[in-house]
């Protein structure tokens, strides 16, 4: 478990990093927290010609509010997000999801940009980005472009980012005041990737649901918005029957794969169970 030879670069700026990506013509890998890439290198499953280490680019780590969004620099550590007061206030779902990410040493190194760009469909951050209808900013040789969550994830470990682009920022709309949220996750052990995770945001007016957002982790090749289930709540309100119906719909919407940890049927079933639990818990903290 030693990686093959590679060149190593630690640029001090995004421009310098972009120039390096250009120089290697798609044969370089960006190193963020390294929690997924380094094992892939050691297993020789990834054999890039070069690593471009983003850890010296201080300007990529920040959390700030702008235009109703919380903007997080791609290199912001998960451990920073876990304790950031702005995140706690404006994005409590992100805060809760962060606690499900691995273990403390992993969160200390892992970054939000790295997690999203890695696009593991069982990971928490892609589900949160999807549920909150967030965006990422990709910077390439031709400048910046904004990519929505829906356009970002293509399939397992694959995004629409170009090889010469760097994910520099994650933009998440601040959650409406009074919105309820929950991240329900089932994994075999604490800290593992989800067998199934459901991120939920509920905005209510009395028993009416003005906005429901539900997204999955672990239920297929990409995180999935469960729009048809959301619509049931937005149409029928937040009574038990509507929640049951939404949960049932959720389990119909997913096409999970089987792996060593869980069958497809079990994942489908869990999608329903956790959707119900997530909605109910989100409802419990929603005001309005």
């Amino acid at each position, binding site marked *: *478990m*030693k*990686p*093959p*030879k590679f060149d190593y670069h630690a640029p001090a700026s995004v421009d310098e990093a972009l120039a390096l990506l250009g120089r290697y013509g798609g044969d370089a890998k960006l190193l963020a927290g390294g929690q997924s890439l380094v*094992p892939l290198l050691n*297993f*020789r499953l990834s054999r890039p010609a070069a690593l471009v280490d983003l850890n010296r680019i201080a300007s990529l780590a920040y959390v700030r509010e702008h235009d109703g969004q919380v903007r997080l620099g791609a290199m912001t550590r998960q451990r920073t997000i876990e304790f950031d007061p702005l995140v706690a206030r404006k994005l409590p779902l992100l805060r809760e999801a962060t606690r499900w990410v691995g273990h403390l040493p992993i969160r200390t190194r892992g970054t939000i940009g790295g997690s999203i760009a890695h696009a593991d469909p069982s990971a928490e951050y892609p589900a949160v980005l999807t549920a909150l209808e967030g965006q990422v900013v990709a910077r390439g040789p031709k400048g910046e472009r904004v990519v929505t969550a829906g356009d970002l994830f293509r399939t397992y470990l694959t995004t629409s980012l170009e090889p010469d682009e760097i994910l520099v920022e994650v933009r998440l709309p601040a959650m409406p005041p009074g919105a309820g949220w929950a991240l329900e996750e*089932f994994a*075999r*052990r*604490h*800290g*593992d*990737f989800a*067998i199934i995770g459901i991120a939920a945001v509920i905005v209510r007016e009395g028993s009416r649901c003005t906005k429901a957002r539900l997204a999955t982790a672990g239920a297929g090749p990409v995180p999935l918005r469960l729009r048809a289930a959301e619509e049931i709540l937005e149409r029928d309100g937040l009574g038990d029957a509507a929640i*049951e119906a939404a*949960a*049932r719909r959720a*389990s*119909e919407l997913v096409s999970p794969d089987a792996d*060593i*940890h*869980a*069958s497809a*049927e*079990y994942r*489908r*079933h*869990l999608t*329903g*169970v956790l959707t119900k639990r997530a909605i109910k818990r989100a409802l419990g903290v929603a005001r309005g």
Partner: protein
Amino acid sequence: MSEKSWIGKPVRRVEDARLLTGRGTYIDDHPPVANVFHAAIVRSPHAHARILGYDCSAARAVDGVAGVITGADVLKHTKPFSVGVTAPVHYYCAATDKARFVGEPVAVVVARNRYIAEDAADLVQVRYEPLPAVVDPERALEPGAPVLHEAVGSNLANNRRLVYGDPDRAFADADVVLRERFKFPKYGSTPIETYGVIARWDALEGVCTVWSNFMGPFIMHPLTARVLGLPENRLRFIVPPDIGGSFGIKSSIYPYMALIAVAAKLTGVAVKWIEDRREHLLASSTGTDRVAYRELAARKDGTILGMRFRWLDNVGGYIRSPEPGCSFRPTGNFVGPYRFQHLEVDASTVMTNKSLTGPNRGYACGHLYFETEGMLDRLADEIGMDPAEVRRRNLVGPAAMPYRTPSGGLYDSGDYPTAFEKALEMAGYDELRREQARARAAGRYFGIGLAVAVDPSVSNMGYVATALDPQFRAKPEYLPKSGAVDSATVKVDPLGRVIAILGSTPQGQGHQTVVSQIVADELGLIPEDVTVVDEMDTFTRVWSISSGTYSSRFGSVGTSAVALAARKLKTKLVEYAAHLMEMPVAALEFSDGAVRAKAGKAPSYTIKDLAGRAHWNTESLPPGMEPGLQATAVFGFSVAKAVDAEDRVNSSNTYGFIAEVMAVEVDPETAAIRILRYVSVHDAGTIINPMIAEGQIYGGALHGLGGALYEEVQYDADGQCLTGTFMDYLVPTASEAPTIEIGHVVSPSPLTPLGSKGLGESSSMTVPAVIANAVSDALKPLGIRITELPMTPSKLWKLIEQASRSHAVPTARHPRPALP
């Protein structure tokens, strides 16, 4: 022991300061020779394939490569290892003719560093002819299954049918006969430190030195010498002071010791190989996966009359010694803590295209008790009796101790009913049952499991011969085997401080601490006065073929050797003092670190007084006394005898007892299992250090929990390993650890000087049983009984789902889950 006794106190481990600050000396920290080269092992990607040839030219051409050796070199320069059965299985330290499991070594690249070695290993071309594979032990015995070893002719490595008493009569007389099929998973230990070997072959001296984290048994030393074609006094095994965990797994490192030794011989350089985690998960060692068919005969009052076991133990591609210990290690305690006298065991050892097996904490006992305790609960259900009461009616009583089991075990001491009642009382068993009734009425799935077990320690080397037919053992050329021996040397330096030298190979057990407690007690010192050296070296230590730190033996046999050595030395000190004091030995006693007159006024001599005089002035010794203040003792059990003509053998030497109660709740929607209570009561005789003892119980319990819920080395039908990383092979961590309530009962062993027994495997052998019983009890309203481990949520949910569909009445609280 007096108030001043160090034995029985939770003395802090002297090992921890260095281990917790990263200052331990493990094999990878151990550069015993300069200019070491590094090995990378080329492994078979095929589960079953004929090896047609090798092309190592590209690998040899890489700058920094010292050489490449292949199976062809192994065939030429080594002999196969002896196996524990008569079937002609040729097990070499690397594949020679065929690869028989994914990950089997086929070549070794030796280079300047591991990076270069791995780069070059990628370039080794091995030409394979892939063959059909088989991984299931029942399928492997069917006609037409791919045969791994043509010389054997089938995949059956061994079969023994052992009969004790008259089982046919017991089954004929029974009111109740129950049958069940169980499956136990293949899992290992995954110690934090993987295997590591450094070998130097000195062509001039003709000595091969192998440093490794091998834990014994040192029977593997003469066997490896034979494999390498070396006289035993030209093969030196050295074990560094620290081993980062083993739990049985590192007893199976020996083929790599031979492989790296050959690599050193053929490349002419010292070679170091540190196993990486992927290699460890693919190809180190695990326990067997087993299919078991169990039958139980009982009276309707709950008295067990007899049992039948039919086992298929899957040892993987080759039967590697000490297998088939997977079947026979518990021969003496086959009946567990129960009184029944009639037993039939039909034990088959099967070879399939999986990785190889060997001792793993609880060796064979996790399997044994999972099945037996599962049968006890089925009996309770069948006759409508509380499972605690069924066990009470069958436990061996204290008056029967020492107790000879029908299969030859000699349970040295114990009070099983008292320990069992203690566990029930600690758990509040009756209240738990009431809580269960309330929970069930509310539609919740709450269950209580029980498990009791005899915990064998210090294997008698003779048990392995149970694998052989009595007719074979009766041949004049057959040499019987028996024994369980350990040694220790205690010496006093000229200023009165003590050094104790062991031949053990601790892997974290705290031997230094425990030995310092024992010697301090024996010689009236404090533990800080005792330095304990435990770096095993076959050239300098006193050892025997059973030496090593395995089968929970140190707490029993190792501590005995230490106590006896200290006592020998004490005797000498008293004799010396008697001479100085011109008094008869009988008038003196050794107390509080000094020799004193039993009565009257006389000077006393401390150890320091005596040590200085004895070392500096040998003229002061009495006539005939050997100079020097040291004593070596070798302790061996006289109850370790060879297997007899009726297949009876006292397979271990001391036998403890475990009684456990667990309460769980199962979430029927997710199939998650929550452990609500877990009580574990142990009787391991005298406890030398309760803190270390409890650490062993915690570790054993978590290890058992791994096999019960998380861990399984899995293969697809083609023999590809699916669990090559820790993302797929799940090991329980601190987050998964339940709260464990531990209790002790102390029945000192009459066989050891301190009354101690082993405790190292402990709850690893009972947790699979107790949690399976608890989950079965929880899901009883659905008619579900657990027969297979691990109980993953996905598998458990499938059982719940099928049961809910077929016959259970959905409760109000948990309506039948809605499915698409």
